[in-house]
């Protein structure tokens, strides 16, 4: 029953652009967002602004405690109890979220905005089969019958490139690896066909190869469904691989904001330069360049290709 009203609401919102002027419709607009901690009575996020349009990927980088996750949670309407949005605005497909009732939030989440996180195992119920949990989202948000929802969940598991959807459907979280769980969580997150997907440190606990695969999967979803992505990571490499635009955050401030190529190649703020320098200094390339003799490289390449299969 939600599908019809949701769809028309979304289309209605899309047809009246938020920002005046031409160009693609803005699906998520964060303007000068400020988040306040009521316990310590301090402002934690000091004004962050960005816009997401369908198919666009915006990245937020920064160290732990810089306010990345609070920004995501504010956009999802799930700030921890003692945090409040103290300034600025968040607009999702044209609706200012400040005036949303809990019921309106419930309707918006899942079908318009959704999210995946680090540690997917804890975001899935350990005593319910993972397939059933995906089917559940389809049933709740799109009102399909059990049977249709099951088929849809199997399609989704195939779409996130799990090799044996029928088997995975019947499994519990502890039977799946971290990479598989993250795929399952992504499948659940996109089950109700949201327009915006937030990936908060979604690849952080995964090894480099699985991380690359997950990022490819997200890029694939963006290309096929026109998903707008907000990718949050402390890792510049993740951002470099997938994002069109980057915000660099430090202690609640956005110190740099621009296209990925510009920020990474011509960093203007010293903090961004520091992050890049550390990558150069501590990344694997630095080690390989400095220590590995030329003749060992083929060996390394072979091992990597074994991993990928």
């Amino acid at each position, binding site marked *: 029953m939600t599908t019809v009203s949701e769809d028309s609401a979304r289309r209605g919102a899309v047809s009246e652009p938020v920002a005046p002027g031409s160009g693609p419709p803005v699906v998520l607009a964060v303007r000068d967002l400020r988040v306040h901690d009521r316990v310590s009575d301090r402002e934690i996020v000091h004004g962050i602004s960005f816009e997401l349009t369908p198919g666009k990927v915006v990245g937020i980088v920064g160290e732990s405690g810089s306010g990345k996750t609070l920004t995501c949670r504010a956009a*999802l309407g*799930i700030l921890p109890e003692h945090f409040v949005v103290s300034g600025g605005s968040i607009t999702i497909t044209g609706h200012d979220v400040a005036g949303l009732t809990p*019921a309106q939030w*419930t*309707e*918006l*989440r*899942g*079908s318009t905005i*959704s*999210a995946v*996180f680090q*540690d997917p195992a*804890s*975001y*899935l*119920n*350990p*005593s*319910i089969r993972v397939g059933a949990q995906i089917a*559940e*989202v389809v049933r*709740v*948000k799109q009102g399909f019958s059990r049977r249709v929802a099951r088929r849809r969940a199997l399609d989704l598991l195939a779409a996130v490139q799990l090799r044996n959807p029928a088997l995975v459907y019947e499994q*519990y979280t*502890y*039977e799946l690896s971290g990479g598989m769980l993250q795929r399952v*969580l992504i499948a*659940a*997150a996109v*089950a*109700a066909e949201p327009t915006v997907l937030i990936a908060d440190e979604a690849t952080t606990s995964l090894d480099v190869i699985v991380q690359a695969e997950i990022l490819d999967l997200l890029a694939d979803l963006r290309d096929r469904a026109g998903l707008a992505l907000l990718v949050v990571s402390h890792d510049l490499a993740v951002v470099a691989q997938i994002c069109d635009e980057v915000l660099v955050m430090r202690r609640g401030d956005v110190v740099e904001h621009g296209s990925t190529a510009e920020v990474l190649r011509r960093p203007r703020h010293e903090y961004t330069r520091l992050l890049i320098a550390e990558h150069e200094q501590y990344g694997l390339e630095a080690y390989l360049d400095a220590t590995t003799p030329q003749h060992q490289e083929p060996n390394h390449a072979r091992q990597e290709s074994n991993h990928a299969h």
Partner: protein
Amino acid sequence: MVRRVLARPAGRLGAGILILIALLAILGPVLAPHDPLGSTPDPLVGISGQHWLGTDYLGRDVFSRLLHGSRESVVGSVEVALVALVVGVIPGLLSVYLGRVFEWTALRLADTLIALPFLVFAVAVTALLGNGITQAMLTVGVLVSPLFFRVARAATLTVARSQYVEYGLISGASIGWIIRRHVWAKVLPPIAVALAQTIGVGFIIVSSLTFLGIGVQPPAPTWGGLLASDLNYLNFQPFAPIAPAALIMATVWACNLLADAIRDVSGQAGRALTNTRRLGARRAGGSQPVLAKGRS
């Protein structure tokens, strides 16, 4: 879950005794060989072929009175448990979700109810509303409900803050759906344990009240009432209190056995989910699929 409880000896024994007691409560009046209220000319005779447990001081057949009395005791204790369940569990669940005012009020109300001594309070209420088993048991049920309130609230709190419940919110599920889907499964096992225990406690309370003559008008037989009248003639019939006392004890013991079995099984389910059920176990078959069925 039911199957796993019955797979344990304690669970089987407890359930078996309770089924026997339930049958007594249903069929007791039919099985009774004599009229429980009709006196015979010989009071206080010992055990005989005609009077299996002898007669009391008015010459009434004790065995028939026990059978007739079982219904009051069983219905009374089940009433206590059900009233406590309904009055306790629903606010316990909602106290986590309905905001601070409701939470505070419910908690303070529960504290207040815990502070009231239920036997004395039940006596007072029956004095006020009339001496009936239903009035007495409703009162006791309400006074026992904080147990269910606390258990339901504690179980709800553990899941309500979990990340998969948060994820349910993020994927746009309503609170009602989350309670039905995620919270209920966690709340049910401890509630089942509390229910079995409360039925046992209910038996003791019903027996105590009827022992004091509260809840039931005197000529009507009850287990507690039988015990009370037997005690007055202890020097003539020292064996007489044994039968009603043994019945009360057996019932309470059975309830506790059942409660233990449920607790063991729900604990086992938690362990099994993290340890024993590995990938290979299910492929190999064996006894593992029972667990999976019990869950669903």
